[in-house]
């Protein structure tokens, strides 16, 4: 019998997505924190924490994508060099054939004795050209190279879209696109050991800060990957549920122990060895989801795995607009 622990954390009122984090912190904390100076200090340190972990996930992302690019860059670079060599060799063959033609053009064709040697010489030239497979091989290498360059371009596009360094404000987001983007970025951690299952439904767009939502997804995916060790299945589900949009990030890892569960969203809580985790991952996830007016839940079962569900309110005003 599967024992499910359900933990519901951070449930804010529907439609209360408050936009920027700073505003959010100010309104919710003013009730508890006495001094204005203290509040100011806390806000600064929270903003700092978000900024730092954003840098950390940027670093992780860049390292991942850089590694991912080494393979296509490897064969594209090699192929281009090889094709150049092949063309050089082919040019030599063509030059030899041309030289043969020169000689033949100088031959006196009125002399019937020359016909047979001429025929043989022409056959030789034809064989040299027809037998040279360099152009065909080179063509195949160039085709692979174009594929490789498209792959590199896609990685760069994802990186740009993911970081959104150019526009760091509120946007209309397609969460399915965010999921794909985060999966690409986390690719090097998943590849060769974890199977990814996607069940992505039709979703209305939501209002949000793309780089922050991407950070949430990357964090959840990375945690899931780490929970699974050598192999497992990562399941990503997206769906509309009433006036909410929900995303599940599920792993088949060991689950979260009972004594750990209440602390997972606490800042600086970590189960990783000293120096490996900041302990800020899930607390940041929580903060960002909260600042978008959303909620985060986790269901976990020992030896079966955990599923984090984040949900965001659908903006009804948006639904009325033509797509």
């Amino acid at each position, binding site marked *: 019998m599967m024992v499910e622990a359900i933990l519901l954390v951070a449930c804010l009122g529907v439609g209360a997505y408050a936009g920027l984090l700073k505003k959010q912190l100010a309104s919710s904390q003013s009730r508890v924190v006495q001094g204005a100076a203290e509040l100011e200090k806390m806000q600064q340190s929270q903003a700092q924490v978000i900024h730092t972990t954003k840098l950390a996930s940027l670093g992780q992302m860049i390292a991942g994508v850089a*590694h*991912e*690019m*080494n*393979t*296509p*860059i*490897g*064969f594209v*670079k*090699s*192929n281009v*060099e*090889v094709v150049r060599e*092949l063309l050089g060799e082919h040019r030599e063959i063509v030059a030899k054939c041309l030289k043969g033609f020169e000689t033949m053009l100088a031959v006196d064709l009125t002399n019937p004795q020359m016909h047979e040697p001429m025929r043989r010489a022409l056959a030789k030239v034809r064989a040299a050209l027809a037998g040279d497979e360099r152009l065909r*091989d080179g063509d*195949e*290498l160039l085709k*692979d190279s174009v*594929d*490789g360059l498209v792959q590199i371009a896609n990685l760069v596009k994802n990186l740009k879209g993911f970081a959104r360094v150019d526009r760091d404000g509120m946007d209309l987001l397609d969460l399915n696109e965010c999921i794909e983007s985060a999966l690409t970025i986390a690719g*090097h951690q998943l*590849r*060769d*050991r974890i199977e990814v299952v996607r069940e992505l439904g039709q979703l209305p767009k939501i209002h949000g800060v793309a780089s922050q939502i991407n950070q949430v997804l990357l964090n959840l995916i990375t945690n899931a990957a780490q929970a699974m060790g050598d192999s497992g299945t990562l399941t990503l589900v997206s769906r509309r549920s009433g006036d909410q949009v929900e995303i599940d990030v599920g792993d088949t890892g060991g689950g979260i122990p009972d004594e750990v569960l209440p602390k997972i969203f606490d800042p600086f809580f970590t189960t990783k060895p000293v120096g490996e985790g900041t302990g800020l991952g899930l607390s940041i996830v929580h903060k960002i989801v909260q600042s978008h007016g959303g909620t985060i839940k986790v269901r976990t079962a020992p030896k079966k795995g955990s599923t984090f569900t984040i949900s965001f309110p659908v903006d009804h005003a948006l639904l009325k607009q033509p797509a």
Partner: protein
Amino acid sequence: MSEPRIKVLCIDDESRILRALKALFRDMDVHVTTDPKEAIRWAGEFDIDVVVCDQRMPKMQGIEVLREIRIAHPRAMRILLTGYADLGAVLGSVNEGEVFRYINKPWDNAELRETVQLAAKIARDAPVVQDKAMDDVSREMARREVGILVIEDDPEVQQRMREILQPHYQVRFASSPERALQVLEKHETGVVISETAGQHGDFTALIKALKQYHPHIATVVVTDRANANVAIDLINEGQVFRLLLKPVRMGSCRLSVDAAVGRYWQLKQNPSATRRYIVAPRAESQLPSWLAGSLMQRIKLLPSRLLGLARAH
């Protein structure tokens, strides 16, 4: 007659990499596969000279493939070609795969071709040494004749090494390159155990220089300054025999040192096999200044009677 064509086996889960390598090695007999199991079978079947293998593959990691090939077809020289420089892979490629070179993607065509050509020549010319445990007689002889040098300036680690190794071997300690050389000049030394660096600087340059002139001496690097790039250089320029992380554990340390002594002993009987462990010479200008002058000269001139090779010639 020209030399028979070099036989290369390439393994990668990305078929476009395989096509690129096939084109790059177009003057050789190239076998390519995305299936590690097939590769392990092919190595012996096609009597392969050089294996070029990717590290991260879905069915099996590159170092596992290379370890299996090392057992099944030890004659082949092994090269790891990878886009990921993670420490785990680097350690594995030393300790399990015993790779000849660790090459990063994207590679340099001319360099990779040269490496494969060199490896093929070695695979054909140099005999393979067996990785079997030493018999009692050899072990006793090795114990009497062969010293172990530990280059390490942390007294605690020195003490730990003494506890682990003193009962079985003649162990000498040096906390600086200068002192290390004094030991090497006085005693036959089969195994050098070293940190990558001490308080007063880098030890890796010394290990590499020693390997360049005396490749039969087995080096075991034991470090807490683990870094993938340093480790890769220790493979390519230092042909390090084992790479262990601190804290020093009795079991793995003993196993590694026993195997290192065994390797040295084998090479001592069989000097022509030493070519399998050569490194590319480094230009004098690349050496750190403390090594470039007289120390380097002393390394070159280590007396051959102490290098254990005198008797074999």
